[in-house]
Structures are given as structure tokens and as C-alpha cells.
């Protein structure tokens, strides 16, 4: 067990940044949170304990220190790992359905609703006379009217 602890320490020591720069750290973390870890695929590179994630965070850090913009670093990652690495799916031809699907669903639903509403209007209605209304009201006094 102690071996594991020590191994962890050794690996981590390599990963802990040499220069302490909180602003850069913050920028690295923010960008790392938009990238998916390829080993622990349900986590971001910022959160994943995998070694590859640590290496990629280091790479991001270096690229930032070299002056690359966030956009350029993302392109760098996508060039190597494909769109899969982006936590937020990009907007491309093949993802148009993904991004506009929800809107389509909503419009389709509202459209069907609207159609139904206008259709129903045409249905005939049974009207009650005043006396009937009054009698009905009297009979129903004991019952609760406002059940949701």
C-alpha cells in the first residue's frame, strides 16, 4: 500500500508545476474543463486522475506559455484526437441535427398543439340552460370543486 502512495507521490511530483502562477493555472483549468479525457472517458482532462490527463494538462500549460490562444490549443487537441476530445460537441454539418434538434422538437410539438387547438374549436358544444346550471350547482355543493 505504501508503495502505491510513494508511486503516486513520485508521479505527482513530476506533474506539479515548477513555477507557481495562479492565473495561468486558472486558465489551464478552465480550458482543461472543456476537454474530455480519453482514458477516463466520462471525465474532463481537468478532473481525471489518468496519467494522460496529467500529460495533456502539462501540454496545455506549455502551449499557453508559448503564447497560443485557447482556440489554437483546442485545434491542436482536435488534430490529434478528433472531435471526441471536445466536451462540447462542435457545430458542424453532421451535428446540425444535434444542436437544432431540440428546437425542432419544440416547434413540432407547439405546432401540433396549435393544430389541435384550432381543430377542437370546430366541435359542437352542448349548452346548458340556467336552471340546469343552478340545479347542478346545488347538487354539487358537498363535493370539492377545485381538485387539481
Amino acid at each position, binding site marked *: *500500500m*505504501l508503495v*502505491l*502512495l510513494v508511486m*503516486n*507521490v513520485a*508521479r*505527482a*511530483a513530476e*506533474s*506539479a508545476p515548477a513555477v*507557481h502562477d495562479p492565473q495561468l*493555472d486558472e486558465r489551464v*483549468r478552465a480550458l482543461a474543463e*472543456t476537454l*474530455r479525457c480519453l482514458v477516463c472517458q*466520462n471525465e*474532463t482532462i481537468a*478532473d481525471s486522475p489518468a496519467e494522460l490527463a*496529467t500529460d495533456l494538462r502539462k501540454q496545455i500549460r506549455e502551449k499557453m506559455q508559448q503564447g497560443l490562444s485557447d482556440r489554437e490549443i483546442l485545434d491542436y487537441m482536435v488534430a490529434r484526437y*478528433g*472531435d*471526441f476530445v*471536445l*466536451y*462540447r*460537441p462542435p457545430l458542424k454539418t*453532421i*451535428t446540425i*441535427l*444535434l*444542436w437544432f*434538434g*431540440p428546437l425542432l*422538437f*419544440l416547434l413540432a*410539438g*407547439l405546432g*401540433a*398543439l396549435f393544430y*389541435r*387547438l384550432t*381543430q*377542437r*374549436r370546430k*366541435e359542437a*358544444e352542448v349548452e*346548458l340552460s340556467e336552471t*340546469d*346550471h343552478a*340545479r*347542478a350547482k346545488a*347538487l*354539487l355543493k358537498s*363535493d*370539492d*370543486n*377545485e*381538485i*387539481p
Partner: protein
Amino acid sequence: MVPELGQFALALALAIALTQAVLTLAGAARGNAAWMRVARPAALGQFIFVAIAFGCLMYSFINKDFSVAFVAANSNSALPLQYRVAGVWGGHEGSLLLWTLILGAWMVAVSVFSRRLPDDMVARVLGVMALVNVGFLSFMLFTSNPFDRLFPVPADGRDLNPLLQDPAMVLHPPVLYTGYVGFSVAFAFAIAALLSGRLDATWARWSRPWTTVAWMFLTLGIALGSVWSYYELGWGGWWFWDPVENASFMPWLVGTALIHSLAVTEKRGTFRSWTVLLAIFAFALSLLGTFLVRSGVLTSVHAFATDPKRGIFILAFLTVVIGGSLALFAWRAQRIGLGGSFDPVSRESMLLTNNVLLVAAAGSVLLGTLYPLLLDALDLGKISVGPPYFETIFVPLMAPALFLMGIGPLSRWKKASLPNLALRLRWAFAVSLATALLLSFALGRSSLWVSLGLLLAVWIVAASAVNFWERISNFSGASVAARLAGASRAYYGMLLAHIGVAVFVVGVTLEKGFEIQKDVRMAPGTTEQIGAYTFRFEDVEQVTGPNYVAAHATITALRNGKVIAVLHPEKRFYASQESPMTEAAIDPGFTRDLYVSLGDPVDSKTWIVRLQHKPFVLWIWGGCVLMALGGFFAAGDRRYRVETLRKSIATHAALGATAAGARLARAAVREKSR
């Protein structure tokens, strides 16, 4: 011996389920009373034998019988007793057994609480549920037998995944499954209605309490899962839009739409075919969720032992059950008819809009969850859809629904007046706007989303207050106490559930909007400031637990110099796992959680520590609890209980005696619907 007994019990249960399904459904179709009467005892029989099987598996776990393959894979001689018990559902095979046990329990509940239902209805409902059970029992016996033996018997088991060795493991799956499986009741009622051709307001009244209770359990189950991942996984997240999480959230969304739709069908007899379709959708999504989790089709941290062969079985089962239901629906729906009409501005139309929004949301979550699979299947490349997508599309869809939540309950059935509503709600709106703006300024930096969230949450509460006030002041003459008692339980349930949603929205909005997270390198003596809180790293040492070794840190949290809490985050190394587990230390509070976890070690006394200040995070789950409580009250409304039903039937029978009486009876029903 015991495992064999369990397996035999399962086989018996399957036989009973098969017999029941065939006899009761055929009996209902032919009007054969004797066959239909098989329904209730057969339901009990199934439950008893599945319970026996369940007991056998639990016995094997408790007694550390590693000759049973499933026990060996999910247990260990060092595993504490409570986790040996929970380990029964800690893996694929055992969780299926839990599924069938709970389905059996629901069947018994239906057979007990359905004395007033016509025999053919009961027969059909139980018959459909039995068919579902046949599917799951076959699945177990043919592909995922929890009682498979292992030779040679291993000396020790592989251990239950340490992530699952937690009190929440005892509660989360059973509660969640109770909800999941409970939607099979609404489904069965829907299919029974389609089969019998009797689809009216009475059918909705019968279905409603069952659906509400299932929904309640699902709400609690999801909330439990969320709390668990929050304190267990170590990063402070509480929802990840993971495929398995989505698999439980989609039925919840559709289930919520269903309980609202059932309200309309019960009150006004409209939306009948739509309600039936929703009931089918809700259960279809439950089954789809079962498929997604166990087939290996999607990547998920929750996924069970993935095996495409098992996937084929579930997919076939899913296709038969849901495909069959949808085919039945398509065939029979045309005869159902439209029901009463209503104005474009009315409670009905608002509830229907709520439905459209919820179903669109569920559809969008499904789209996002399955899209990578879609593209991959069409050989169009590989993408991944993460939380940023879901958050972007979900919030705009839900915001209008939240707004409607304020207006809907105040609208009249059939025909409401917008000017009238605006008049009644003008103060509620003003208060919401003012509170949202004030809070946004008071809390400091704030975004549009935060303001919107607060506005909607306060709006719901304010509008509910208006609704309550109007209700109380409507009954003339009576005392306040009488007026309060005059409102039905279902009414209070609705108010409570809606307020629960508001509380939930406040929690989510403020947590996401104002949470602060810092990753700092800390050694003994290091302090770090977050807002008004100071965190001081005291020490870290090595400790040994029952089945792990851990780095145990001590961090003091102070506010204005006073010690608030002493926190002990850990990094645990379990013998059976490769990577370490992060045990976060949390100081919970009504208005904020302080969340501390260990990251990577730098040297033996220096660690990277993640410090988080999470405002109002407890409100997220508090809101869910209120929602569930609201559901509980609504389901217990007196009109579902026998005496009231008898009285109403008598009233309507008396009215129906003459032709004029019949007209009055119709009038009475219509009046009552207002």
C-alpha cells in the same frame, strides 16, 4: 444447496408469470371469469418465489459463499455486513433480481388496492405486468443467472467496488428501481385501456395515484444518486449528464408530463390518446434505460458489466414490448376520439404546453445521449456529447415551463382569460422581479442566468401564494381552519411539489452561479481564503481502514477567526482497486457547503488540495424531497380512497335514474370539472 433453491424459485416464478400472462389476457379478451381470477393469486405467487430467490442470494452473500460466481465477483471476506447485503444489487445479475422483486411487489400492491376495479381491468393490468416480468425473468435465467456456480471455488471474492461501499448503496438502487419499475403500472393501465377499448376519465382516475407514487420514488431515487455522487466522487459535482443518469432522468421528465396529462384526462376526459402514449413512453424510456446501462452501447461510469450478447436480448425484449404497444396504440388510438374541447387560453392548453416542453426536453436529452452512437453507426465519425450541450438546450426549454407553473394552477378549465390572469398575478410578478433584481445586486457579481433562475423561482412561490390565498378566501363564512381543511390533499400536494421545484431552481441557480473552486498546494500551516472562509492545512497522516490504506488529512475551516469545522479529506487505496479513491470532506450548511478534497500529492506532507465553496447546494436535493412529498400527498388524496368513490358513484347513479337526471348528471360532471 441454497443457490440451487434460488434458481429453482426463479424458474417457478417464470412459470407462474407465463401462465398468468397468458390466462389473464386471454381470459379478459374472452370474458372468462375463471381465467381472469388467476390474476391476483398468480401475482402473489410470483412475488413470493422471486422473494425466495432474492433471499437465497442474500443468504449466499451474507455467508460469503464464493462458490456462487456473482457473490465472488461482488463480495469479499473483509466486506462489512451492510455491504454484503447491498452487494446483492451491486452488479448486473443481482440488480435484475432486484428489478423483478420490485415488479412483483408492485403487482401485489395493484392486486391489493384494486378491489373496486372491474375484473377484466385488473386481469389485463396484472397480465401486462406479468408479461414484463416474463421478459426479465427469462433474461436472468437464460443470460444473467445470479446463481451460476464457480469452480474451483476461489479463496476470496473480488470485492464490491469501493465506490459502492457506502450507505447510499443500500437506498439508492431500491428506491430508484421502485420508481423505474412503478411506471410499468401506468403502462399496464394504458395497455389494458387500449385492449379493452375503455379509455375514459375513470381510467385516468385509477392510473393516477399509481403513477404519482412511482414518480415520487423516481424523484427520490435520482436525488439520492445525485447526493451520493456529490459526496462520493470527490469533485463536488452532482449531475454529469452521464448516459446512465440521463437514462433515469428521461423517464422522470416524461413521467412528470404524464402526471399532468392524467390530471387533465381525469378532470375533463380530454388528451386521452396523448396520455396513453405518454404512459407508453415513460415505461419505454425505463426499458431503454435498462438496455443502455447493460448492453455496452454507451460509455458510462455507471454501466454494468457490458456484454453485447445480453444487449441483444434486452433489445429484442424492448422491441417486442414497446413496438407491440405502439402498434396497438396506432391501431386503437383512432377510435379513442378527442374528448371535450377547450380554449387556446385555458388550463388544459397550459398543461398541454407543459407536456410539449417536458417531452421536447426528454427528446433532446435522448438525442444528445444517442447522437454519438448515431454518427458512429452511420460511419460519420466520432464525437462526444458532454454537459455543455445538455445545459445549453435544457435550460431554455425548462424556463417557459417554470413560468407556466405559476399561471397554470390559477387558470380556469376550458376557458381562461389572460387579462384576468394578469390582473390576479400582477403583484406576484412585481414581487418576483423586484426580489430577483435585489438579490442579484446583493449577492454581488451575477449573470443573466442567475437573475432568470431567481426570477422564475420566486415567481413560482409568489404565484402559488396567490393561488393559496384565493383558495382560502373563496369559501365564504367558514372559519380559516375549515377553509384550510376544505382544500384537498391533492391541492396541497401540488403546491408543495411546485414549491419544491422552486427550491430546486434556487439551489441550482445559486450553486452554479456563485460556486468558488480553488486548487492549491498546501502543506502543514498553509492557509487559503475563499470569501469569508479561511482553510488551514494542519497535517496529513497514514491510516488503515477495514479494507484500505489512506492518506488522512486534517484541514480546519475558519470564519472570522472562529473555527467552523475540522475536515478530514482522504485519499484511499483499496487492495482490490488500481486507482485511488478520493473521499471528500464536507461541512454541510443550509446556505452553503464547504467541500474539501485531496488532489495529487507533491511530497509526503504536501498535497494539492481542492477547496470549494458551494452555496445553497442542499436546496437542490431539498427541492427534490419537497417534490416527492408533494407527490405523496397528492397520491393520498381522499378521492382515491374507497369511501369517497362509493359516494360519488351513488350520487351519479341517483342522478342517472331519469332522462332529465341523466342530463343533470352530465351537467354535474361538467360543473365538477371546472
